[in-house]
């Protein structure tokens, strides 16, 4: 009896947290998403907001673009983070390991806003890169590198790096060096050892890192709006503008739920494709 009571008491904070901060607001949001404004202070219940999403090509396009760009950003982050993580986990020794890890962490000491501004200073027409290129004689006039999809990608990858490096370092550290040596000893070269031994071992880290990075990119607001420029369509931006600029909470809430559905679907599909389960990845 008292054991059960203490169990409940132990779980209380978690349950409260889940209930009050996650489940309750979502239920409320869901009801809001089912409402449609028909006049001043008058609302009607129905699926009109969801219908609006599926009939407006702009919303669908933004939705698809956000998903594809996020997947791309995740893939790029993985490609860049893997060698970094491998170096930290397997090549660097002792104090170096810590120092390198710290380097990955440093950008996170400042806020995302400042980090994004940093990139703007580097990439803008009168910015550092442009000036260096002109000084080196590689460019005749100022080069604009800001306000395009590439700049946005750079920002997304930069913001996500750490969240890919950490799980990768953890899984790669658990890879026994002798497995790699055995791979070579039995006739493998660098490529085959990577493909057949290192990569399969790192799959749980890759999957969990990718899930986090994908979610972060999908839900990112600052980076796409600030670095992306006039053509940067990002779904979170659309949700923000529905809520704040258009006062259309109803459509914004519906968008929010669609984004939730999208991210859940893509994560589920990625887990299925890689043959992983959520428990395995998180455990």
């Amino acid at each position, binding site marked *: 009896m008292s054991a059960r009571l203490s169990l409940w008491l132990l779980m209380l904070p978690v349950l409260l947290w889940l209930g009050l901060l996650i489940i309750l607001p979502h239920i409320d949001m869901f009801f809001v998403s089912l409402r449609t404004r028909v006049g001043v202070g008058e609302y009607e219940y129905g699926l009109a907001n969801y219908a609006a999403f599926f009939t407006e090509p702009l919303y669908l*396009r933004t939705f698809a673009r956000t998903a594809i760009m996020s997947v791309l950003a995740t893939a790029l982050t993985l490609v860049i983070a893997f060698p970094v993580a491998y170096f930290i986990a397997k090549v660097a020794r002792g104090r170096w390991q810590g120092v390198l890890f710290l380097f990955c962490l440093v950008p996170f000491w400042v806020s995302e806003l400042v980090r994004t501004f940093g990139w703007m200073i580097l990439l803008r027409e009168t910015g550092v890169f442009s000036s260096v290129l002109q000084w080196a004689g590689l460019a005749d006039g100022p080069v604009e590198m800001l306000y395009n999809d590439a700049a946005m990608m750079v920002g997304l990858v930069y913001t996500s790096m750490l969240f890919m490096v950490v799980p990768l370092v953890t899984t790669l550290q658990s890879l026994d060096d002798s497995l790699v040596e055995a791979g070579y000893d039995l006739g493998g070269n660098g490529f085959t050892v990577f493909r057949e031994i290192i990569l399969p071992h790192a799959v749980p880290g890759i999957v969990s890192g990718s899930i986090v990075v994908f979610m972060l990119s999908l839900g990112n607001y600052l980076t796409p709006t600030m670095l992306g420029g006039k*053509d940067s369509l990002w779904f979170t931006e659309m949700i923000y503008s529905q809520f704040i600029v258009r*006062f259309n909470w109803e459509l914004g809430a519906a968008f929010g739920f669609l984004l939730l559905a999208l991210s859940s679907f893509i994560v589920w599909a990625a887990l299925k494709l890689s043959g992983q389960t959520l428990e395995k990845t998180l455990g």
Partner: protein
Amino acid sequence: MLTNGTILRGTVATLLGLGALSTSASAETLRLLTWGGYAPEEVIEMFTEETGIEVEVTKSNNEEMIAKLRATGGGGFDLAQPSQDRIAGPQAEFDIYKPIDLSKIETGLFIESMLEATKANTTVDGEVYGVPHVWGTSGLVVNTAEAGSVADYTDLCNEEFAGKVSYRLKRPTLIGFAYAMGLDPFAAYGDEAAYSDIVAQVEEKLIECKANVKAYWDGGDQLMGLLRSGEVVASMAWDTGGWKLNAENPDITFVAPASGALGWIDTFALPKKTKAEDAAYKWINFVMKPEIAAMITASAGNFTASNGADEFADDELKARFQASFPQEAIDNIKWYPTVPAGLEAIEGAALDRVKAAN
């Protein structure tokens, strides 16, 4: 048993004590939801010295103010400063404000015409919801050395400035372009079909013009940076931004567009759940004193509705104002009428399509 009871009673007492403390603290605090520059530090210090009331400032903009007050049903702040055209619509829709008790306001401090206009624009069901504070215009900020020929919004679309102009993707841009295209959007406010037609024409123009735009600016600092560095030579912007840059670089200045600058008035409005109503009235009456209003003008860059504050205003600022606004330009200012509920949805959809266009 005894100890338990003691502990319990102690806890309750402590909680009550804390509660009392926090209420007594908040009674002497004015939570102000306003724009950057409208509540300078020195003014707050003087106010606190005179009344003993602390002021907590949250900087925001029209859309966020409405969204914040809507989320709490008009709570969380004691005094807000939305623009006069954005009060009646949201009030009718979301019921987030409290009527102003004009008897508690020293109306003699206000420029009468401005007070009357604001009262008329913010009246819902016979109650007044706003009194004027700071006013200004939006128009064009132009680097005259590089883009001297820019005289109206539509000039931003001229080929010669390709990649060197900027504007916001917000409703003032739609309105400004509409006037520059010879349309009259304010006259169409009451007629949704006519207004949709105007917005559709502007949308087409903006899509056509998109290639010319370097970036849609979002915040004042971002725009200032773009103009300062020369990456942008002409932009739609507020008058104060232009004057501020003029002080640094005489080539850059604010230009009232040929079709007329757009005039706005930011107000004082009481959130529905204000907890410090008296403090709010005290603040209004305090900052409208001519010498205080002049300090706010110096900080925000814009003039106020305070009667006689001009005397105290900075001469340089006055000179800049006169350079940008000859008498006919002042007469040509298009003051925003109250936005009827529902127009934002039409504008929003158009702006989304502009953003998505290639």
